[in-house]
């Protein structure tokens, strides 16, 4: 049955995606929800929580506040915190009850901004979508609000914004640094990385980039905005392996010249009898499939259980949001590459290759999440 899961986990939700996306940028994120719901994010979705004083709070909404639609309390509490901490910006993200009662978070944000003078945006998350939606919203809102419109695309400069970089997809295992190194190795520079290892001031300069690289589906909304505003073309893909890392570097160079967007991993040949299945986010998994194909000649298809977009899935890939939609797709796979929490629904006799994802299993297998950027994969 749709929407039920007998045994598998659930992905990080949109509101947590917002917090993760904005974590390092010096802002303040407020989840508008009941007390305690933020500790789920801190514990399971945020490996940086212990070591960094990033400002992520919850509004501690109570039944009576919700019945009365007492937005003034929310506005007042956020204003008070803002006056204490002076964040660079404030994001207020919604959850099921505010959605249900129609709380106007953009209006709340306008009021907070009026009172504090701090840029504030209200994001219409509702905990019923995955982090892809939340991260997308957060990065797009940032781009619209902060990217300096006076800048222009520096074509041929080799400056690249990396969009969609969060620990939810990449953990904290050095993948972000490895992407910077890979860019440098290929004659590019990381103009900004959205959003690990970069400051808000670097993100503000995003308009200068030559090309953008979306390393997750959740980086595409910002990529499209930057294209619209600055004409910056984007390439979607993660430089996994060595062969595909080279392919992606070439795609970046080509996009710089042609000004056209590209999704190099989606043009994988149609494989009726793919030898392996990868379960995961579309850009990540599609790139991995392409990389495995180049490295070991293994044909892979992607099963994407998250929101995706047209053009990110190859012909033999599938979208499958629920446990009951995923199970029938796993039957004929020789190898299945997926987070270990998918193991119980995979055929007992399959070759299961664990590839954990923070967005699915949280911190449980964190130490086993490999950095696969621009190096031999050794998965199959």
């Amino acid at each position, binding site marked *: 049955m749709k929407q039920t899961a007998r045994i598998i986990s659930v992905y990080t939700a949109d509101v947590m995606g917002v917090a993760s996306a904005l974590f390092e940028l010096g802002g303040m994120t407020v989840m508008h929800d009941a007390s305690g719901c933020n500790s789920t994010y801190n514990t399971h979705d945020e490996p940086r929580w212990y070591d960094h004083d990033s400002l992520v709070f919850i509004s501690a909404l109570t039944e*009576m506040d*919700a019945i009365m639609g007492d*937005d003034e309390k929310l506005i007042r509490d956020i204003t008070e915190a803002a006056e204490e901490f002076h964040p660079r910006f404030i994001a207020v993200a919604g959850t099921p009850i505010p959605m249900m009662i129609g709380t106007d978070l953009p209006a709340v944000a306008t009021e907070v901004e009026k009172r504090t003078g701090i840029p504030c945006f209200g994001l219409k998350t509702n905990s019923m979508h995955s982090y892809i939606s939340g991260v997308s919203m957060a990065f797009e809102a940032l781009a619209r609000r902060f990217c300096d419109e006076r800048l222009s695309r520096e074509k041929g400069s080799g400056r690249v914004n990396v969009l969609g970089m969060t620990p939810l997809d990449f953990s904290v295992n050095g993948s972000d640094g490895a992407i910077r190194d890979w860019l440098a190795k290929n004659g590019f520079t990381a103009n900004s990385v959205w959003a690990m290892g970069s400051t808000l001031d670097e993100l503000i300069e995003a308009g200068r980039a030559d090309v953008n690289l979306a390393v997750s589906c959740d980086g595409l909304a910002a990529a499209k905005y930057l294209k619209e505003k600055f004409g910056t073309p984007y390439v979607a893909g993660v430089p996994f392996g060595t062969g595909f890392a080279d392919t992606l570097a070439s795609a970046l160079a080509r996009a710089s010249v042609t000004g056209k967007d590209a999704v190099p991993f989606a043009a994988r040949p149609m494989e009726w009898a793919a030898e392996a299945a990868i379960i995961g986010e579309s850009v990540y998994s599609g790139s991995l499939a392409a990389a495995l194909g180049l490295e070991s000649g293994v044909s892979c298809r992607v099963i994407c259980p998250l929101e995706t977009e047209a053009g990110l899935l190859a012909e033999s890939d599938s979208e499958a949001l629920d446990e009951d939609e995923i199970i029938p797709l796993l039957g004929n796979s020789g190898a299945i590459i997926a987070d270990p929490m998918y193991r119980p629904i995979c055929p007992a006799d399959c070759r299961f290759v664990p590839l954990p994802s923070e967005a699915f299993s949280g911190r449980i297998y964190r130490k086993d999440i490999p950095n696969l950027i621009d190096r031999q994969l050794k998965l199959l």
Partner: protein
Amino acid sequence: MIQLAVYGKGGIGKSTTVSNISAALSEAGVKVMQIGCDPKADSTSALLGGKKIETVIELIRTRGRDIPLSDIAFEGYMGVICVEAGGPTPGLGCAGRAITAVLELLKEKGAYEKFAPDVVIYDVLGDVVCGGFSVPMRSGYAQKVFIVTSGENMAIHAGANIAVAVENFKDRGYASLGGIILNRRNVKSEDEKVAELAQDIGSKIVGVLDRSDTVQDAEELGKTVIEAFPESAMAGEYRALAKAVMAECGMEVKL
């Protein structure tokens, strides 16, 4: 204990009708509790000299849940026990949850046992837009639903919608339709339209109230017609209605 819920389009005269029924029954020695289920919280004001009482929601919000029943319920005309659920200001919050929370609290505090009314009447906001507004018609609450309507199209549509809700829930042991109360506005073909509604929803007209200035006169005094103009023809109509409504609920009242 008989419980009934009265629904109908906003402004159609539910509260006026319900208050007069409560007053009429009370005069006949029936102990009545009238519970206003509308954020406007004006269901019972005619029983309280035009005064609006503090709502349960406001009391919970300001004083917490440990409020005594004596602070929640007020004695009105001829001993009618008056309660107003309250709710958020328009455009905000969740009025449905407000109603649910209040009715749950009344049960939790044993209000029904403490006051031991013979009849409980729920006067419910006009448009049943979400689950919370159907709580008064659920099992454990009203056994019968009455719809107040005029011949105006919007009132008829609202009435039909309420009937749909009642019908949808018929397998759940919720209230059944007691009937329609025609509160005349003297629009064209009013009687025929309402009769047609009754037929469409498989119900009947249990009472008819004429359009009368007496109603407004009483309102201006902050009283029910029963109290302000007991000898009037309108008072007679309210008494007849009260008797008919009670008869539908299986109670014979001498009025």
